[in-house]
């Protein structure tokens, strides 16, 4: 990091204020429940909670990878696979 971007560590009062600001955004963006998960649980507890979320989502048929960074690649691969199959089928005697 560029040293000019480093600031002195926040005082206890500033830290409390930053935590309030952070929490307020968590609640606005994700709701009270996830604010608690993110700000009050340990990392291990947060993983347990996420595990429950994923299991529940998958149980209801939600594909968590559908929004991943390679979603467009998966779509492209499916398209190309279909095009190639059509070519192969049409070139057969």
């Amino acid at each position, binding site marked *: 990091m560029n040293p000019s971007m480093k600031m*002195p560590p926040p005082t206890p009062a500033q830290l409390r*204020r930053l935590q309030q600001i952070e929490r307020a*955004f968590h609640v606005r*963006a994700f709701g009270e429940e996830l604010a608690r998960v993110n700000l009050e649980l340990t990392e291990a507890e947060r993983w347990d909670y*996420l595990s429950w979320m994923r299991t529940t989502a998958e149980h209801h048929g939600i594909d968590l990878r559908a929004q991943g960074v390679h979603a467009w690649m998966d779509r*492209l691969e499916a398209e190309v*696979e279909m095009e190639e199959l059509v070519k192969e089928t049409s070139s057969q005697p």
Partner: protein
Amino acid sequence: MTDKELHGFYLELVARLQARGILCAITSGLACVHFQLAETTKDCDLLCHPQNFSLLLDELAAQQVGGLPCAYRGNLSPPLDERWHRGGWTSHFNWGRGPGAVTLDVFGRALRGSGPWEGEVSGLYISPHIVAQMKRTNRDKDWPFITLLGTRLVKMGDQRGWLHIFSEDTLAELLRDFSCPAELLARRPALRLAVERDQRVRAALLAERLLWERLDALRISIYERALRPYLVAVRRARMPDGMPLAESHPIRLQCAEVHLAVSPLRDYGIERLIEAARHEAIHKSGLIAEATLWLPDVRENFAYLN
């Protein structure tokens, strides 16, 4: 593999890679969870220095999960090779297939990173600053994470956090108690408007986000066009499922050398990309023309392609 086992597997894998001297770090979703931001990802995204790719490939080839070997993901993954990663490509691996697959995505370059990521590794993870830059995508779900990574950076004493806050309310709250360095106000017009309590700050933040979204959408369309002939070539090579990495990697390299442009974004032109994204972000979105003045200079975020 349970979620807990999966998480443990990724951590152990990255720790082992680092112990072998491979410069690498976890980024994206798993890093967010580490930074107190729950994200329901099951994939591990790994930044790895391209000079360590052959070591990484050896490690992956030796690593089995539940008796399954590591393989390139489908026909689509570009090879793990410095030439293509310098051009902004990424490589994708998995152990097994379908919803239960264990997946690893490797980035030689931090996409949209404004500087080298190698000095920003802390333990197994990359810094929140790099994660926040990489998350500037065209996916809605990424944006609240960016703001929270920004507030976390400010909490850690890293002023670069100011560059990542996209919430008008959060900016106003922060500015009540903290001051933003002049250097950053010059780099990000929306920050300057927030400091001046200008009512146009919300529109400026929206315009900036739209710019990043359009940049990502255009980037994807360029890489998609470039990937298609390579994908066809890899498919026609008819590599069997589970082919060992040591055998499939040279075949992918051969396909890439003939069919995969090394740096499609650079070929397209960075200035051209930025201009097109700025146009789409403002004019096609119905924002007033003045909003162009609120957009930051994003050229440094594509310097990784040089």
